[in-house]
């Protein structure tokens, strides 16, 4: 029997199969326990948990995108939050237009914050955002084009290493400052919020939430398959050689810039899709997502999970965010200590992250078995 494409891509990828399989089971279980089990049963899963899980999956996709450039290309981007946020803003603008006249001011043509700011007409860059297809296009195009311009400039002039990291940080910082401005037309520091429905479905309904969760899962799966497919291909081999010995690859005759640019754009688009999925589930997008802090934090997710292993990024994103949700509600003062400590400990003792640790332990067990 011919294997399906999915299984072909996942061949020899036990970790990926386990992580994605487990996630599939969890998502399915949560969906069933939320919809089919009555609310008073102990097996019922609250909508809050559904949303939380959906958020984790969006973050996992973002981490996956970063792992692609950091783990495989060796480019540590400290500004990936920018692409995530841009995707989120594109989705947010669409959702804003869906509110129609149900806003506080009841203005069918203008979102609330524009009425509040005394704008008479909708700014030109909001045109078309009432169309979902246009929105989907923009979610990918805007961050993609930004990644293209930025990457083209940076890679062509061979900005590498630390310098590249610092200018990616400058990029997201500049965007954050710009989006915080009220007259940018993106709602200033309040961002976009108060969404009502998406594609005609009410966002407050459990079924919509479950649908979004499932879509997030399949987006993550799709992102994973694309990334894995790229890395399994010949192109992937070149990319990894660039990471390890850039000058040699260039010397052999490869156009290193083009490879870097391609991976950078793919990663930016994946991050943007993650942002677009994040917004309807969380219900808000604001300039805080552009902050360098967020982008660095997401580097840590990848580091904790284990960079250079795609499923590791997923694990890291889920572990850190789960810990974050737990600590910030249970022990808010401890959270920064815990996160800070985690940064230090992971870089010092777990350079390969959780995945590296598991592999190490397994190797040890195996070698013991062989001795025995």
């Amino acid at each position: 029997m011919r294997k399906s494409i999915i299984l072909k891509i996942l061949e020899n990828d036990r970790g990926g199969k386990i992580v994605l399989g487990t996630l599939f089971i969890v998502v399915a279980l949560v969906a069933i326990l939320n919809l089919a089990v009555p609310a008073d049963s102990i097996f019922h899963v609250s909508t809050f948990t559904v949303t939380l899980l959906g958020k984790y999956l969006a973050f996992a996709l973002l981490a996956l995108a970063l792992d692609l450039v950091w783990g495989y290309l060796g480019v540590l981007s400290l500004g990936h939050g920018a692409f995530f946020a841009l995707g989120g803003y594109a989705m947010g603008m669409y959702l804003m237009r869906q509110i129609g006249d149900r806003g506080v001011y009841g203005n069918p043509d203008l979102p609330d914050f524009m009425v509040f700011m005394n704008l008479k007409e909708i700014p030109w860059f909001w045109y078309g955002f009432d169309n979902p297809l246009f929105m989907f296009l923009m979610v990918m195009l805007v961050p993609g084009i930004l990644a293209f311009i930025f990457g083209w400039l940076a890679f062509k002039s061979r900005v590498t290493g630390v310098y590249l990291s610092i200018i990616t940080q400058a990029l997201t910082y500049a965007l954050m400052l710009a989006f915080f401005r009220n007259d940018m037309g993106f709602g200033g520091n309040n961002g976009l919020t108060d969404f009502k429905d998406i594609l005609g479905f009410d966002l407050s309904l459990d079924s919509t939430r479950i649908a979004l969760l499932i879509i997030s899962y399949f987006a993550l799966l799709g992102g994973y398959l694309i990334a894995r497919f790229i890395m399994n291909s010949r192109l992937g081999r070149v990319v990894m050689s660039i990471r390890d010995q850039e000058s040699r690859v260039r010397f052999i005759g490869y156009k290193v810039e083009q490879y870097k640019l391609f991976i950078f754009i793919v990663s930016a688009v994946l991050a943007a899709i993650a942002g677009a999925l994040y917004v309807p589930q969380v219900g808000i997008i604001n300039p805080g997502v552009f902050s360098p802090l967020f982008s660095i934090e997401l580097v840590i997710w990848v580091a904790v999970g284990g960079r250079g292993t795609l499923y590791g990024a997923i694990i890291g994103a889920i572990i850190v965010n789960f810990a974050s949700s737990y600590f910030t509600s249970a022990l808010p003062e401890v959270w920064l200590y815990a996160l800070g400590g985690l940064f230090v400990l992971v870089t010092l003792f777990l350079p390969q992250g959780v995945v590296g640790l598991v592999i190490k332990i397994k190797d040890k067990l195996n070698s013991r078995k062989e001795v025995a």
Partner: protein
Amino acid sequence: MKIFKIILLNLLILSIAFGETLQEDANKLLTKSFKTKEKVIVDLTSKYSQDEKLEFLFQKLLVGDLLYTKKNKVIVYLKDKKENNYLTTDIFSGEDLEPSSKYDFSKIKINNKLRSIIKSSLAKINLFSKNEDTRLKSAKNLLTNLDIKNEELINQVLEKETSSKVKEVLDEASTVLIAKYKDGEDKKEAIKKLGSFLSPKSLEVLKEISSNSEDIELVKLANTSIASIESSKSFYSFLETAFFGLSMGSVLLLAAIGLAVTFGVMKVINMAHGELIMIGAYTTYALQQIMPNLIEYSIIIAIPAAFIVSGLVGILIERLVIRHLYGRPLETLLATFGISLVLQQIVRTVFSPLNQEVKTPQWMSGAWEINSALSLTYNRLYIVIFSIIVFLFVLYILNKTSLGLKVRAVSQNREIARAMGIKASWIDAITFGLGSGIAGVAGVALSQLTNVGPNLGQAYIVDSFMVVVFGGVGNLWGTLIAAFTLGEFNKFLEPYAGAVLAKVIILVFIILFIQKRPRGLFPQKGRDAQD
């Protein structure tokens, strides 16, 4: 009825002349008629202008705190009130009265006309004050509320005045009066002369003459003078912007210079650098809390203290974490970012998450007024000087001392440096401590400019990195030039783009600049530049 009033009024005016002391004369203020009050005030001013009590009385009258007891008509001023009880003091004897119900007192009421008379009276009184600042202030006051009635007074004071600053203001006042009210050559001369003054008053009078006068020659003269004022004004505002840029540049320099050591020399991306600045600022705050009587000196004491505290924290960070990460700059970035989060939370736990107020010593507040179009605040002026001193200090240490020689040796070739007998790991710790200590010193300076809070460090970290990268890593002079360039750039952009957009433009500019010169303004040369 009217006649009766006039008689009464005249009687009162007559009676003023017979008063003997300030107290007796001042008692005539207890009339309901505003007209009488006006006469009394004018009279008091001419009679008692040297008496300090009069000034005090006028000030209280002006703010409406001057009362008199209904019972024995004693003039008092309101010191404090608790609910309906007034705590008052006799304005002449200075004795506190028993607290008493507010219904026992009446207020000496004034109207707007009286208010302006009192103000000009106060100005006159102050013109004879012994204190130069008071004289200057009142001369300026006189200039803004200029009246032809003051002419004699001005000339009188001009004769006696010794301070050149006060003289200049009065000279301008007198010139304005001549330009406005005199005729002929004098007027022309005065209009010409007004072109060299800078206060808004001269401009206002010149514009008035230019638009109202029918004499074409006068209009011409006035317009030349206006043009001259405006060109020197725009020159001074250029100077002022340049100074703001300089002060912003010096802040950037202070924030970045420690980073130039840890990042530039050691290749460690220290994301906790901002928090080391924050620790310096909190050291200043803590010192002021411990020694509330020494606010004037606290900043001076804080400089070495902050250097030591931040330096020790830096050494601790180096020994515990960074030591294990040399040669892996991206990993130092992650680990030090974790440290920065922990340091922030420690500060929140110890000092509260709110911003703390660091007091400014007297000698750092106020402004140096060069002329009426240009004044520079002392705190910024000192910070410019201070940042240059710190810069020279670091330059000296790295280039002229044996420690600096060893630091450079280790950073250039660790193995050979060790072979020459340099304790590389010890040098690492000291270098990192030096960079951190300087961050602390920057924190002392910043505590005078911004809020001291747990987020202080974050506000400067991105900027500091931009400065170091823009200037060229490992080059202190590059850091200096980059800091001042960016500061000036920012301040000159601000009027056109607004503060936030100016910053965005600068960031984009740096991003583009890095494409052209990936190693900054002054790249390192030779083998060292390869990594």
